[in-house]
Structure formats: C-alpha cells, structure tokens
C-alpha cells in the first residue's frame, strides 16, 4: 500500500515534461556506425550495423533503404532532373560539376536474423518506386533469404562509402567544411503492409522510424565536430580523433566537422520543463550573434515545450552553417542548422526567426514524426505557424527591412523603424502570389513547381492554422495543438489524425474547413470594395392601394436631425476559397454593427439605414 501511495505521489510530482522525457519510442531501428572522414577525398567510409525490428502487422521478405546521396550521383537522377526545373537548379549544377558529385556506394551487405536465418550476403538492387527512372539509385532493395515476421529482427552489416557533394543542398562540403546529412544507407518505414521508401526528390524531405543511433566518427585532430545526440566517448591518436555520439528515440542522425568552428555551451532551464544543454557551433565572424542564437533556441524550447510537448533529450546542438555551404536552415533530431548574414538589419529578427523555425522542427518533425515526403505541410506548416507565434511571444513585432545593393554576400542593411512588421507578414505576402498554384494535400514532388511546394508546405498551412485559431478561439485551439502533440510523440501521424483531434474539441464538425483548405487551390482573400452613404432618397410615386392610392410627387426635405441615411458596404471575395467572414461597420455617430457572411458568393452588399 505504501508503495502504491509513493507511486501516486511520484506520478503527481512528475511534470508533464518529465512524462514526455520518460516516454520511449518504439525501437524499430538500432544503428551502430563506425566511420572515418577523409577531408581530401571528401568521403565518409565505414560500417553500419543495423538491427531492424518488424513493428508492422505483416511479415516482409524485402528491405528497402534510402541512399539519399545518390541523388547527386549524376545529372539524370530524379532529384537532379527535378532540380533542373527549379530556379536554383542551374546554380546547383555549377557547384557539383568538376567532381562535386556525391554518392552512397554500398560495398557489401550481410544479413542475419537470430532464430530465423544465418549470416547471408545480400545483393543490393536499385528500385524506383515513384517514377521508374532507371538512372535514379536513391532507393535500394534487399531480398532476404526468409521473411521477417512481426516482432522479429534482422541484423545487417553494411559496408559503405559516401562521397559528399560540393555544396549540395542540406549536405556536402565546402572547402574544408563538412555537413554530413542523409549520408548513410537508411532503412525505410514498413507500415500498412508495404515499404514507405520514396526516392529522393528535389522538393521533398525525409521520413524514417525511431530508434537508437550509436555513431563513432573519426576525423583529423584539428576538426571541431557537432552531431546529433550526446558525446559518449572520445579517443585520440595518430593525428586523428574518434568521437562517439549516442541517442535513443530519434529517427535520423547528422553531423558536421570544420576546423574553424567556435563553440559555446549554455543551459536551458525552466521550472516546468526539463533542463537541456544547448551547444552552439558558430562561424568566428558571427561572435556578435551568439546571444541571439542561444536566446532563440531557449525561447523555442520554452514556448514549444509549454504549448505543445517538452523537449525530452538532454542536449540540443545548433550549428551556424558556413556561409554559402547550402546546409543552412535544416533540421535533424537534436541538431539543427541556422545561419545569419555577417551584417543583418536589426528589425529583421534574424537569426531569431530562422533559429526558432529550425529548432521548432525538433517538435514538428523530430518528436512528431510526420511523413515529409507525403505530408510536407504537417511539419513545415505546423512549424511555420508555431515559429511566428513564438517569435511574436518572445520578441514582438519586427520592423520592415531592406538590404540595399545585395549581391554575393554584400548588402547594406537598413531598418525602417517606423514600419513595424508582424512575423506573419512574409507568410501572407508569399501566399498571396502563390496560393492558386496548387492544393495542399499532395506528395511534395507532385506540386506543379517549387513555389507551389513552398506555398503548400509552409505558407498556406501556417495561415490555415492561424485561421483555425481565430475561428475556434485561443483556448480551444491551444488545447487541440497540445493534445495533437502529446498524443503523437514518437509516432507518425497523418492528416486525419489532426483533423480528428480538431473535431474532438471544436464545437462543430470542421471537415468542411479542411476540405476547402487541403483540397482546393487558391487563397482566402476578402475585400471591402465600396462604401456608400447617402441621404435617403425622397419618396415619389404611388402609395396605398384602392381608393387610398395617392401620388406623391416629391417629399419635403426633412430637418437635418431627422435625416435618414442609407449606407451600402460592398464586400467582395477575391480569393478562390470561401470562408465565413465577420464584418464590423462603424458609423459616424459611433454606432457599430457586426454582420456575418458565409463568404460563398462572389460578393455581397450589406444595406444599412439610420439617422
């Protein structure tokens, strides 16, 4: 009995944060990796031992792996073909040509399944589940000697060489700087009886299962290294050092190495949240931004932690990515990249905004593991919404800024202090021009172009959430977001999971809202196009009927005090998407009238009459 009471008390005193920290992900994967960086050859070579457990409901005799770096293997990969259509495609070709290409070459694979089959060499086969492009080698299939049943595990020893691309997007090298991401043969997600393992596309990010990463990296002694997880061990010798990083409950692992990094460490503390060690790797020329980097990270851990779910890991590493490296602005579990211009206008709220956004992905991507291939809006959109909310809560409005004569790292920063800017303004600006390009609920590479992807992954969903918050009210919406976060930690929620929670808390069924927002292209835009207020016209013509019918030629003008005005307010729907609208009309005498409009028709005229 005493024990029960003790447990009860323990449970009461455990904060929500500690509950989240104590929560464990299903350990579908366990990676033990040992690799060595060759700065001269721009390669990472080593061995990966992967233990994969079938967490699905059906057996499988095949394993699918992502070899993301093969996107940069040649000009005909799906990624490169799609990238060529992007505005930044040609410049990307410039950086990879002359041996700037990258690849992930699987040298050998040996598989074993305890109690099922013994060590067996396997032959990788490249497959293209999305587009049948034979030149694309970003997905590898392994056929097992025997199927792996639900709950059973298979252990794979994979020897691989990863050549990093020159200034590749999100990953690669730039002189002696290395950002190593999407670098290992990484198993796909076995769900709903099939492998969810898409090819690497120009407009898509990633998706993987949770588990444990134990990664040892060997680099030349002078290199400063940052990585996902926590440093568990380090050894040195022969001009090299080996650093071992470990972390449970994550679904990806990235690391970086550069001799010139400066580092700083601070601690995030909050009475209602777990303590987190914040480690920053930054460019020496960005010393003046160190406080801002830390402050933005701390504010993210605080606000996202209180609003949604506590950050459960002991450490977070933020990397101020090297200028022009193309690795800035990216999220990985327990590590994210941010950056800032050497000179930046004060009112621009940088590096605050970007740091909050990327750190915010620790929650909407890291902890809530949505499928970035198929539902990009669920991580980017949610994070964009929460970023603007956090930015406003922590720093208030910014100011309008401009970089004059901007080119190639140059620019004269200028802040228009008298023109304040809401952190949401850029979202509205971009959405206005791109909203009609496509609809939201598509695979990220299916969008018509890069702008449609940006709009439907970032801007429109963020505005959708702001609209929903305004429509349902703060209290209800905050409850929805918190519940959604708490229920989906270390899970792979789909759009319907979020919609179900909205419907659970909203006073009415909101399917109509999501139907419009997810499946209709266009913007929500309503304008007051005309306001007219004139003295009421004098009555003329016949009145009454029968014998009492009377012809009135013109009424006498009434005294000013009694004069009646007739007013019209013309409201026009400019955007393709209709949503209910509230109209507040203020009259010269101070009287106000509130009107509702369902917003369905192209326009509506509201009529008012009064003195």
């Amino acid at each position, binding site marked *: 009995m005493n024990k029960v009471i003790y447990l009860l008390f323990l449970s009461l005193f455990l904060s929500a944060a500690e509950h989240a920290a104590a929560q464990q992900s299903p350990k579908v994967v366990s990676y033990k990796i040992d690799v060595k960086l060759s700065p001269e050859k721009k390669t990472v070579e080593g061995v990966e031992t992967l233990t994969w457990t079938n967490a699905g409901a059906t057996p499988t005799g095949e394993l699918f792996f992502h070899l993301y770096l093969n996107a940069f293997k040649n000009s005909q990969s799906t990624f490169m073909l799609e990238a060529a259509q992007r505005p930044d495609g040609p410049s990307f070709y410039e950086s990879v040509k002359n041996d700037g290409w990258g690849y992930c070459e699987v040298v050998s694979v040996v598989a074993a399944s305890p109690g099922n089959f013994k060590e067996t060499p396997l032959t990788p086969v490249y497959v293209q589940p999305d587009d049948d492009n034979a030149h694309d080698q970003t997905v590898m299939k392994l056929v097992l000697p025997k199927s792996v049943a639900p709950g059973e595990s298979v252990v794979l020893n994979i020897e691989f060489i990863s050549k990093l691309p020159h200034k590749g997007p999100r990953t690669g090298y730039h002189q002696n700087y290395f950002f190593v991401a999407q670098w290992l043969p990484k198993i796909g997600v076995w769900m709903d009886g099939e492998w969810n393992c898409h090819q690497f596309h120009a407009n898509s990010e990633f998706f993987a299962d949770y588990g444990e990463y134990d990664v040892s990296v060997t680099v030349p002694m002078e290199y400063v290294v940052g990585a996902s997880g926590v440093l568990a061990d380090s050894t040195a010798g022969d001009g090299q050092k080996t650093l071992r990083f470990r972390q449970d409950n994550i679904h990806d692992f990235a690391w970086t190495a550069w001799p010139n990094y400066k580092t700083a460490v601070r601690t995030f503390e909050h009475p209602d949240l777990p303590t987190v060690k914040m480690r920053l790797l930054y460019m020496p020329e960005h010393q003046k931004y160190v406080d801002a980097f830390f402050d933005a990270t701390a504010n993210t851990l605080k606000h996202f932690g209180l609003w949604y779910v506590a950050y459960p890991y002991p450490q977070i590493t933020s990397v101020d990515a090297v200028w022009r490296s193309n690795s800035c602005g990216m999220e990985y579990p327990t590590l994210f990249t941010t950056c800032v211009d*050497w000179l930046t206008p004060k009112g621009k709220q940088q590096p605050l905004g970007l740091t909050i956004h990327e750190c915010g992905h620790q929650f909407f991507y890291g902890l809530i593991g949505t499928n970035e291939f198929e539902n990009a809006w669920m991580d980017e959109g949610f994070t964009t919404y929460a970023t603007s909310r956090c930015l406003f809560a922590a720093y208030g409005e910014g100011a309008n800024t401009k970089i*004059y*004569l901007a080119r*190639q790292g140059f620019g004269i920063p200028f802040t228009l202090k*008298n023109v304040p800017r809401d952190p949401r*303004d850029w979202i*509205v600006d971009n959405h206005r021009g791109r909203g009609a390009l496509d609809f939201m609920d598509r695979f990220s590479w299916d969008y018509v172009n890069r702008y449609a992807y940006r709009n439907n992954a970032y801007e429109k969903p963020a505005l959708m959430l702001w609209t929903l918050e305004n429509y349902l009210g703060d209290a209800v919406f905050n409850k929805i977001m918190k519940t959604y976060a708490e229920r989906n930690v270390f899970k792979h929620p789909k759009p319907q999971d979020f919609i179900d929670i909205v419907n659970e808390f909203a006073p009415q069924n909101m399917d109509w809202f999501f139907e419009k927002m997810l499946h209709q292209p266009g913007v929500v835009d309503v304008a007051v196009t005309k306001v007219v207020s004139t003295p009421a016209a004098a009555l003329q013509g016949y009145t009454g009927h029968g014998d009492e019918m009377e012809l009135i030629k013109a009424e006498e003008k009434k005294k000013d005090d009694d004069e009646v005005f007739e007013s019209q307010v013309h409201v026009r729907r400019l955007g393709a998407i209709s949503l209910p609208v509230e109209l507040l009309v203020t009259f010269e005498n101070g009287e106000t009238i509130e009107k509702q409009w369902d917003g369905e028709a192209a326009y509506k005229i509201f009529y008012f009459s009064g003195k």
Partner: protein
Amino acid sequence: MKIVDAFRQGVSLVDQNRKAICVIYLVNLCVAAIFATPLFILFHKQVGALTVRDELAFKFNYAWWSSFSFSAKGLEETMRPTLSGGFAPLFDNLELLLSGKFASFGWFVFALGLGYVFLAAFFNGGAIALFADERKTFTTGRFFSNAGLYFHHLAALATTALVLFWLFYKLLNPAIFAVVDGIVGDSLSQPLAWFVNLGGYLILFVLVFLITMIFDYAKVIVISEKKESSWLCIWLAVKFIFGNFGKTVGLNALLLLIGVAVVLVSGLVLTLLQPTQIFLLALVFLIQQLVILAHIALRLTFYASETVLYQQQSAAAAPVKKRKR
C-alpha cells in the same frame, strides 16, 4: 582659380538667380501634381471609407500595402515602405544609380523618368545660359528663351548620356563584378566578400561621378562656347576635366559632400519627426518641400560653379594677344 573661389562664385550666381530655383520648383510641383492626382483619387477610392485610412495618414501600414502592392500597376508600384523613411529614399536612389535597375517599377514609370530627363535638359539649358551670360541676372523671358535655344544640344547630350549609361550598366557593371567574384572565389568568409564587393561598388560610383561630371562640363561648354556639335563638347569636356583634374574633381567632390550633408540632415530631421498630429504632418510636408528646393539649388550650384571654373580656367589658359603698337 581655387576650388573654393569657384564654389563661392557659383553660390553667388545661384543667389542672384533665385527666381530660377522658384521656376524649376514650380515646374516640379506641377509635374508631381499631375502624377499625384490619379494616385490620390485611387487611394481615396481604396481606403477613403476604411478605418485604415486614419492610420495611413500618419504611419505606413504594411498589411494594407502588401495587399495594395500585389495588384499595383504603373505609378502605384512606386508606393513602397521605404518612402516613409528619412534615409531610405537616399539609399533607394543610390541603389538605382549603381545597379541601373531603373525599370524595376515597370516600363510606365521608366518612361516617365525618361521624360523627366528631357524636361530637366530643357531647364538646365536655361540655367546654364544664365550663369554663362555676362549679365548673370534672371529674367523669365531670357531663361525660357535660352532653355529653348539650347534644348536640342542638351537633349542630344542627355540622349548620349543615356546610351553611355546603358552600356555602362550592360557591360561595365557585369565586368567589374566578374572581377569581384573572381577575387572572392569560393571563400568561406562573408566579410571578405563584403569588402571586395564594396570596392566594386566604389569603382562604379567613381565612374558614375566622372561620367556625370563630363556631361555637366559638356553642357557648360556647348552653351559657353556656343558650339554647334554637342559630341565635340563631350570631348572638350574630357580634355578640360583631365587638364584641370584636381580642380574639377575637387569642386565636384565638394559639391557632392554638401549634397550628402543636406540629405543626411534632412533625413535625420524627417526620421526624428514622426507625425502624430495634423500640424506635424503639415510640418513634414513643408520640410520635404524645403529639401526639394535645396536639391534644386544645389544642382544649380553645380552648374554655376562648373561654369565659373570653366570660364576662369579657359580664360587663364588662352594665349595673351599682343598689343598693337
């Protein structure tokens, strides 16, 4: 002749011809009114009955502008947040000058700008002729008569200058920045790139300064010497500038510094003076008009000082005639 003397005499000449400033100001005001009226009507139609109207009178509203600018065409495109700042218009103009992106507000606005160049050429002719004339005093008749008399020369010079600047932005600008990019290379250091680019822009600025000076002196020479060929005057201007390099460049640098000082002071005043009431709004408007007047006076001082310097240096360099016995 000393630079300071040329400047003093230039100021004195402008002072004697204050009415020219007024005439040019009034013309500017009329031209501005012609284009401001449709803008006013448009704004009134858009926001006249909305609550944002009162806020807009005193403060730039970004959310409103974002919506407005999305469908803005022609002159409407020139409405932008930087207009509301004290210093931002200065940087706007500097950026246009160095980048040459004059069509960034659309071709309609670009065409208006071109029209203004020729209108300025007309009035410049009148002003320079006043300064070059021995009488050196203003009469409206003489001013407009000279403006008409020399218009074809000044228009020809303006056209040549436009072609030259077009080549400058099309060829020289990219060439300079190709060199800049070559120096920066694959460097990881943004400060290095920043300073090398700054060097590139400074070279561009010096070249713009020199080209402008050459065409200023070409205008002065074509009127002072009553030459028939405008293009010959460009060559004569080059010869004169490089023959008197220290004095010509020194004088224009001094005038430029005064111009920068005027802009900085006015920018500071306008930045500090954020109108919250209607009378402050009126005060800001008045200050802006004074700034425009100062700009016109300064431009005329450029021409007057350059004319004085040219005439004095030419006279000093002319061979002395032998006295007849």
